[in-house]
């Protein structure tokens, strides 16, 4: 991976971090409503993963989707506008935090029903395979989602039909307040891939380079027709499950310990220690990200609300 790409990864990760921090403030100020799940701590996962895709590869994920949206190339303007329910939002204010999507960037959505997008991912991959296209569908989900039937039906079908899906489990150890050990028969999620005869790998999700390397390899293997695979990417969310989580289920010391491996810090150190770049350049990148988020908030604040007369738009694709 060349240096320019690495610096771009750094930019994307800082951009997501700033977006999430500003999002939390806007939520507190009552400018964002509903449920909002922050990606802080997990930035390296989608940055490395989506950084390894080709344009024809589809991405689909759960409700923790702001970072994924950014990595897929949606401008921060449209992400924040969606958070604020504005007409200029990527889902025109209909979806909110949990439901961002952008077809044109091959991002097939954030989905709020746990596990429900996994069978859909199999279908996206079926579409590509059927039409003879060489796209891979990258499907992201939490470890908690591997306990619902949807997961098992989807991964089984993908294997039986040899569909080009890369299943990516973001194991952040908690589904809301329930640890992986309390909810899953095996706490090493990759063992579930074993049960479906899939190639799998566990990856350090705090290190964007490790995520990128494993993802690149896996995506290309899937593209070459070797069948669906699974990555279990080990990560941690530094904030609560969603806004307003009392976090009674974990100790702050545990959070502190993981924060020592902050994915932004890990990449920062890598870039400096290997003399890829200078502190000044990284500061300049951080400044650029700050500015982009500031501009995005201004854009969203100035954007119009969707008109009340648009309520019934898009219920069906055809006139009724």
């Amino acid at each position, binding site marked *: 991976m060349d240096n320019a790409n690495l610096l771009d990864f750094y930019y994307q990760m800082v951009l997501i971090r700033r977006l999430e921090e500003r999002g939390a403030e806007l939520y507190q100020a009552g400018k964002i409503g509903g449920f909002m799940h922050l990606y802080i701590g997990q930035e390296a996962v989608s940055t490395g993963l989506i950084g390894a895709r080709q344009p024809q590869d589809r991405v689909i994920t759960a409700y923790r989707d702001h970072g994924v949206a950014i990595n897929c190339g949606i401008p921060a303007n449209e992400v924040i506008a969606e958070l604020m329910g504005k007409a200029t939002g990527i*889902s025109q204010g209909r979806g909110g935090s949990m439901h961002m999507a952008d077809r044109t960037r091959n991002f097939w959505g954030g989905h709020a029903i746990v596990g429900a997008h996994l069978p859909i991912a199999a279908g996206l991959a079926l579409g590509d395979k059927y039409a003879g296209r060489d796209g891979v569908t990258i499907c992201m989900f939490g470890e908690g989602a591997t306990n619902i039937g949807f997961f098992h039906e989807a991964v089984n079908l993908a294997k039986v039909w040899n569909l080009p899906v890369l299943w990516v489990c973001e194991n952040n150890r908690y589904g809301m307040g329930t640890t992986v050990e309390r909810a899953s028969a095996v706490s090493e999620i990759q063992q579930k891939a074993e049960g479906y005869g899939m190639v799998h790998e566990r990856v350090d999700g705090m290190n964007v380079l490790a995520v990128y390397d494993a993802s690149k390899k896996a995506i290309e293997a899937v593209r070459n027709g070797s069948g669906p695979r699974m990555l279990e990417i080990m990560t941690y969310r530094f904030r609560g499950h969603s806004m307003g989580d009392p976090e009674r289920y974990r100790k702050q010391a545990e959070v502190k310990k993981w924060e020592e491996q902050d994915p932004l810090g890990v990449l920062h150190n890598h870039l400096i220690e290997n003399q890829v770049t200078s502190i000044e350049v990284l500061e300049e990148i951080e400044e650029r990200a700050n500015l982009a988020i500031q501009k995005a908030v201004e854009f969203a604040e100035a954007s119009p609300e969707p008109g009340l007369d648009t*309520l019934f738009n898009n219920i069906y694709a055809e006139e009724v």
Partner: protein
Amino acid sequence: MSRLTMREAISQAMWEEMEKDPSVFILGEEVGVWGGSYAVTKGFYDHFGGERVRDTPIAETAIIGAAIGSAMTGLRPIAELMTINFAFAAMDQIVNQAAKLHYMFGGQFVLPLVIRAVGGGGRQLGATHSQTPDAVFAHFPGLKVVSPGTPADAKGLLKTAIRSNDPILFIENATMYQVRGEVPDGDYLVPIGISCIQRPGKDVTIVTYSKGLEISLKAAEELAKDGIEAEIVDLRTLRPLDMGPVIESFKKTNRAVIVEEGWKSFGVGAEIASRIYEQAFDYVDAPVVRVAQKEVPLPYNRALEQSALPQPSDVVAAVREVL
């Protein structure tokens, strides 16, 4: 009597029944260590322990299935679905199993089972998390569907439900957990399948339940300013449906408005209206009017969402239409 919120009343009902009967237990997502994602089971885990307050994986089918199976052995599970929207992930267990097993095997299996599920819109949660699909569940014989509108009814109906030997879906509304009301202390039971008058009146009958009660009470206050006295009938149970107080009131007022939060088509209002026509046709002075949610998946944007939900002003307008 104590002044309790809806949340406290529901919590108290479960607490009292669990203290009384060791076969009552709770299972669901985040009901234990977290204390319930809507804090309804706060403190239960510490008091009753993990055997009786069981955190489950995210697995709605398994939650309902395990509740059904254990109920068939004589336990009295209270299965909590974090929201009613997730009931769709467990639809087979609810519809093909819970609602059928007693009948289909000639009455051999008994299912003393309560499914608690919270629904409703108005909190900017988007289309999948904001539904009021009560009518869907009320469609199935074999399942009872209860949905209280006051804290006292919440307590009394839930306690009765826990003691009942039939599968009962108990539907709460997330925007009503803070609603306060007088609740009788101790062993207070409200029978399932009995409608009641929540506000007496003579000019028009408003038939409603759950969130619709709150909306209708506000509308009735508005109307009273103009000297219009609305009588409000609270269904409290959708199946089995008690039309008694509805028909009695209608025979007096000859006019009805039905208020529900769910969608209008094929909804509670449709059922009530046709029963009024069937049972009191000779008393009809004006077409029955339904107030319900606009026919659209609920959007995230606050103003858009509110414009799709029934408001007190809609009820006022509907009453003026039938008068």
